[in-house]
C-alpha cells in the first residue's frame, strides 16, 4: 500500500473546496478515452482501452463446455481480472487479491445484468454443450478508475468477438450475438465532494466509491459501492445522473471504435 503524504491529501481537499481538481478537470468530467479494438489476433475478440494514463487490455476466448445445471440452455460467462505488478508498484504477483476479484465481479455484473450477450443463443445441445465465454482483463497501467476502463475494454472486446464454431466443427464462425451495451461510470467521494473518473491521487484518498452501469435508455443495470465511507441520498442521485450523462458520451466513443 502506498502511503499518501498528508500534505498531498490536504492539497487535494483545498483544491476541491475551490471546485478544482488536480488535473484541471471539472468534477463530472472524464479524461480522454481511447479504444483500440481487435489488437490481439489470437484471441476471439480483444480491445485496449486507455482512460488518461490508465491502460487495460481485455481478451476474449471461447470454448465448448457443459452448462450449469440451473441454466441448461444458456451459455456461460466467466470474467477474470489480473493486476500485474507491471502496472503499479502496489500490485503484487500471485493469486488474485481482493481488489482484482472485485474488479472482475463488477465487470461481470455489468455485462451479465445488462443482458448484453444473448446467452440463450449460445446453446449447442441443452444440458450438454454450450459456448463458454472467457473474459480476461489485464491491467497494463494503473492511474485510477480501473472499473470503467476494464468494463469498457470488456464490452469493446465482446463486440469484436467471433464465435470460433469452425474450430469445433459446429458450422461457420459467427459474430457473438449482442444487444445494447451498458456503460459503467465510477465516482468517488472525498472531503464531501464527489468526482467522476478519479485519477490515482484521488482514488488513493477516496472515502467511498460508487460504480453505476446504465443502459441506452438511462436505466440502471448494475451498481457497486466500495470502500468504507458513505454517500448521502442526494449524492447518490447526483452520481447516477452524472453516470447517465457520461454514459451517453462514452457509448458514442464505444460505437465509433467498433464501427457501429
Amino acid at each position, binding site marked *: 500500500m502506498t502511503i499518501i503524504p498528508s*500534505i498531498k491529501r490536504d492539497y487535494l481537499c483545498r483544491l476541491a473546496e475551490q471546485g478544482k481538481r488536480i488535473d484541471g478537470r471539472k468534477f463530472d468530467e472524464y479524461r480522454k478515452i481511447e479504444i483500440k479494438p481487435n489488437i490481439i489476433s489470437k484471441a476471439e475478440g480483444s480491445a485496449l482501452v486507455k482512460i488518461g494514463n490508465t491502460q487495460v487490455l481485455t481478451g476474449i476466448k471461447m470454448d465448448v463446455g457443459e452448462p450449469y445445471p440451473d441454466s441448461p440452455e444458456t451459455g456461460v460467462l466467466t470474467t477474470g481480472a489480473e493486476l500485474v505488478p507491471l502496472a503499479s508498484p502496489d500490485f503484487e504477483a500471485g493469486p488474485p487479491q481482493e481488489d482484482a476479484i472485485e474488479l472482475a465481479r463488477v465487470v461481470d455484473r455489468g455485462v451479465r445484468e445488462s443482458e448484453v450477450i444473448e446467452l440463450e443463443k449460445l446453446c449447442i445441445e441443452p444440458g450438454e454443450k454450450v459456448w463458454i465465454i472467457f473474459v480476461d482483463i489485464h491491467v497494463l497501467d494503473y492511474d485510477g478508475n480501473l472499473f470503467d476502463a476494464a468494463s469498457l475494454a470488456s464490452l469493446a472486446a465482446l463486440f469484436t468477438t467471433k464465435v470460433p464454431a469452425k474450430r469445433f466443427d459446429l458450422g461457420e464462425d459467427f459474430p457473438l450475438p449482442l444487444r445494447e451495451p451498458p456503460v459503467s461510470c465510477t465516482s468517488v467521494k472525498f472531503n464531501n465532494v464527489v468526482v467522476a473518473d478519479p485519477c490515482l491521487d484521488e482514488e488513493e484518498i477516496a472515502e467511498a466509491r460508487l460504480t453505476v452501469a446504465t443502459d441506452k435508455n438511462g436505466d440502471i443495470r448494475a451498481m457497486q459501492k466500495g470502500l468504507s465511507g458513505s454517500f448521502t441520498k442526494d449524492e447518490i442521485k447526483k452520481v447516477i445522473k452524472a453516470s447517465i450523462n457520461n454514459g451517453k458520451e462514452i457509448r458514442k466513443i464505444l460505437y465509433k471504435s467498433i464501427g457501429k
Partner: protein
Amino acid sequence: MVVLPSQLLGDIRNNKAGRGTFIEKGKIYSERLGILSKKMGYINVVPLKGRYNPVEGDSVIGIIIETSSSSWLVDINAPYPALLHVNEVPWSIEFGDTEKYLNYGDSIMAKILMVDESKRIQLTLNDRNLHKIVGGHIIDVEPSKVPRIIGKKGSMISLLKKYTRCRIFVGQNGRIWVDGDEKGIEKVVKVVNMIENEAVSYGLTRKIESLLKKDAKDVR
C-alpha cells in the same frame, strides 16, 4: 544512447565502471535499461525509470510510514525504508513520545546520514534547512529526471521560482515540494510534468522560459 541490460559497454583497461554497470571477465556491461554517459573515464548508465538509489549526503523528501518508541521508518522512494532515530532530530523527545512530533503520513525534508553495505539507510534531520513539511503540495517524478528539473547549475529551478513565486524544494529521490498560492502550484505541477515528459529534448530551458513568460504578468 539507450543501452539494454547486459549490453557490452567497454573494457576495464580503457574505462572505469561507474553506476548502473557491472564487470565480468574484464569487460563492462550495462546493469539496467538506460542512457549511456561517459564522464571522466567512467562509464555510467542512467536508468530511464526506477526507484531512487540512496547516496550518502543526498537531500530527500520522506514520508513517515511507521513510528516506534525511539525511531521512525521513512519511505524515501528507495527499495527499502529508511530509519530516522530520535538522536537524529533537533527536538529532545521522551522515550515513547515520537508520535507527538512526527506521525504516520507526515512529510519531512531529510538528509541521508549513511547507507551501509546491506543497503540499510539512516536519515538525519540535524542540519540546516531540514524540517517537517507543513502545507504545500508534493509532486512525484522519476528520480532519474531530477537533474533535468534542477537544470545546469540550478537554471531550471531558479527559472521556475522566479516566474511562479513559489517555494520549491527538489529531493534527490524524485519528490518535489512546492508551496505558494494555488495558481503558482498549478503552474509548477504543469511545468514539472512537461519537463519530465520532454527531459531529453534540446533547448528545454529556453522552451520552458518562453512558456512561463507567456502567462506571467508580475515577475520578481
